[in-house]
């Protein structure tokens, strides 16, 4: 056995080397920030990302978030909301959380909004939804296993929302040259009871999902407008 030790050690060393080599290529994929090019064109390890790329990524995030939230809402409606209650006053009775800050609803009005306000609006939307989604996850746990997909989607959306927030902050920093501190998420959902009725709970969750879907759509639209303004200002205002 003693003779085999050097062989074993050598084998081990070789394996480690092989793994290092293998993972070296994947190093970037595993979480290292991606290669970015600065204005000079050289690739540097990334603290810098171009504005176009950032905008594209942010828009992708927003699109995905909206898509998933739409799926969740539809699923929830099919699973838990009886048909008779789907189009009823609950839909209108809900007070979406973000009603507090008015966002214009027409294109003309929105186009009048400056970049700054657009960005800030988006950021505000994003930040205001992180907490409710976390709460929603907790409430969804109370359902049976049928809600697992919705729960997973909600978790996924929460994660994406956090990264979207980072992207927006970065955008603000780049486009507006502002520095933003991390905003503390307000506790806005303490008003909910600990043990609500089932029906009310369902309706409330449904309301949350629909409201979130709406706000996700808003984010997406705003960001796309922003992108247009960034690329070609002239054509963006022709309508």
């Amino acid at each position, binding site marked *: 056995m003693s003779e085999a030790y050097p062989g074993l050690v050598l084998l081990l060393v070789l394996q480690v080397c092989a793994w290092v080599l293998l993972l070296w290529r994947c190093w970037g994929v595993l979480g290292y920030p991606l290669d970015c090019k600065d204005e000079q064109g050289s690739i540097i390890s990334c603290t810098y990302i171009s504005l176009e790329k950032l905008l594209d990524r942010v828009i992708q995030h927003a*699109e995905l978030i*909206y*898509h998933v939230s*739409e799926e969740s809402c539809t699923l929830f409606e099919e699973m838990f909301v009886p048909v008779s209650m789907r*189009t*009823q*006053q609950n*839909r*209108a*009775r809900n007070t979406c959380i973000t*009603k507090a800050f008015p*966002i*214009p*609803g*027409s*294109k*003309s009005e929105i*186009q009048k909004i400056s970049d700054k306000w657009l960005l800030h609006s988006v950021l505000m939307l994003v930040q205001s939804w992180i907490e409710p989604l976390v709460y929603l996850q907790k409430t969804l746990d109370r359902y049976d296993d049928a809600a697992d997909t919705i729960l997973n989607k909600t978790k996924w959306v929460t994660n994406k929302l956090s990264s979207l927030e980072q992207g927006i902050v970065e955008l603000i920093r780049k486009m507006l040259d502002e520095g933003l501190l991390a905003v503390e998420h307000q506790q806005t959902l303490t008003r909910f009871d600990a043990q609500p009725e089932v029906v009310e709970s369902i309706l409330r969750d449904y309301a949350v999902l629909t409201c979130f879907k*709406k*706000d996700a*759509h*808003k984010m*997406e*639209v705003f960001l*796309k*407008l922003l*992108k*247009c303004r960034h690329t*070609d200002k002239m*054509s*963006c*205002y*022709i*309508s």
Partner: protein
Amino acid sequence: MCKKGKHTWKPNPQHMGGCRWFTKDSLVSFSEAFSSKPSVLEKSLKRAERMKEACGAKCVLFLLFVLTWLVENAGHTSPGKPVLLRCRSPEKETFACWWQPGSDGGLSTNYSLYYTMEGSREDAVHECPDYKTAGLNSCYFNKTYTSLWITYTISVVAQNALGNKSSDPMFVDVAYIVQPHKPENISAELRTQDQKPYLMVKWDPPHKADTKSGWITLQYEIRLKPEKGAEWESHYAGQQKQFNVFSLHPGEVYLVQVRCKPDHGFWSEWSSTTYIEIPDYFRPRDTSVWILIAVLLSVCIFLILAWTVAIKCNRIKSYLLPPVPGPKIIGFDTQLLKSGKSEDLLNALGCQGFPPTSDCEDLMVEFLEVDDSDEQKLVMNEGEDDLEGRVKSSGNDVDKDSGRGSCDSHTLLLEVSNSSTKTYAQVGGNSNNKGSVKLSRKSSTNGKLLSFETAGEKTNTWPTANSSFLLARQSSCYNISKIHREASSLANKADMYGNISSAQSKSKECRELHSTVSGDQKTWFASKKHIPLLPFKSVEYVEVQKLNQQSMLILKPKTEGHKSVPPEFIGQEYTKVSGVVSDRVLLLLRDTGAQGSSNTQEGENQAVHPSLQCQVGKMVGTFPASPALEGMQLAASGYVDTAALLQSF
């Protein structure tokens, strides 16, 4: 004011006797028109009765008038319930709603649409701003009235003289009801790539959809079919505004249509059809066709070749692989060998009379000296003198005989018996002999001398012979080995085959003896004293039968009249004479089947020539003569047969 339940009603000015109420999100018209009708009838009837009672004709007329009025009213009803069909927004900036009217109840009915907006005051009911733009039974909301991300509650109310009816409310969020118009300016263009045609279809988005600013993002789908085809072939084009279609059938007319859809919304209608004709073209042959043709051709050729080969198999075989000729000597007939006539064979070979003929035998016989007296005696010390005497005599005789013809060889030291035809060579040793055995054999062979010697304490040696000393150990073996040795040590180009009967079983010992005996005379001398003497068993006799044509000395064991002929001497064996030592000593090889037995190379300048030279009658080759040999005359030992070898055969 109307009150029903906990809801507060507003009186309906158009409707007597009925109430309708509004809630925040629903418009429900509650009509009591029907319920009020019977009460009117009842009243009028009662009145009629009273009138009847009061005044006759007047009352009847009045009644009639009232009845007709009632009948007229009974033919009309309030309108049926309208149904909201859909609301759509083509570009996410405006939207329109359409409804389906119910029955009009025989009266002119008008419809009005009311909506409330989420977030506004609960009782802020608005009416449709535009009934005309979107067509009949529609309501169009322009930009100022459209707000995204706000839920509208919309309902339609049908109204006629007798009543109104409200439809079920519809909840609308403009962002989710987008259905764009059809794509525009569809163009299909035929292009070729690598000689293959394809269709490039281009289009524009609907002009109202604002895709440039990113307000709305559209995805497209294209479909086409041949004019006479049954099914459409759809392709999803993503967000691009052109698409390439491959795999078209030439000579056909294709129909192309495009439609679009926002990210989340409804598909538009299919656009107007565009016709495009694919012209006929010559399709260049694909390489696969060529490959197929090549394969078929090769298969055919292969089959033909195979058939040809099968037919002409043998000829081809003989052509490709010619038969290997056997070995053949010109002028030599292998049949001769088979027939066994060696004379013819040798004549063919060109050896004329090479092997000594049988008349040599006679010659041989003549010159052989017979030594009867000591045939059976094993020579010991006392025998020496005899031997010496014998040798002398023989030697003298030999001397005399030297120089004679080919058959006059008396250098062969053989003890010849009295028999004229046979010569015997006594090869033997006394069992008690201390190792000295001498074999002297003489025969008048062709210059071959076979000398045997005894070696013992006595220095009865050949002073000259290099390797002519035989050391007697075992009887037969020893002697034979001697013969071997001498034969092998002689350098001679012409070998003679001696026929020595030997005991094969003792070959090993003989070799050993070979090795132990050095060819050097001196060493022999030196070592002779130390040579252990092995007891001898018997005396062996070898007789030279004849000298055959091939100059072979045919020896055969003497089996007649000798008692001590060991039984192992059976048959005849041919021993090759390996050489002649200074024309006097015939060294026979021990025939062990290999040339290698002739391994005694005592003579430093003696080469063993195993080949038989067909020089009949002539001694070919030179014998490297050792000086000692030349002087090999009758030495003190007396065993020297210094008869010169016959120089020629």
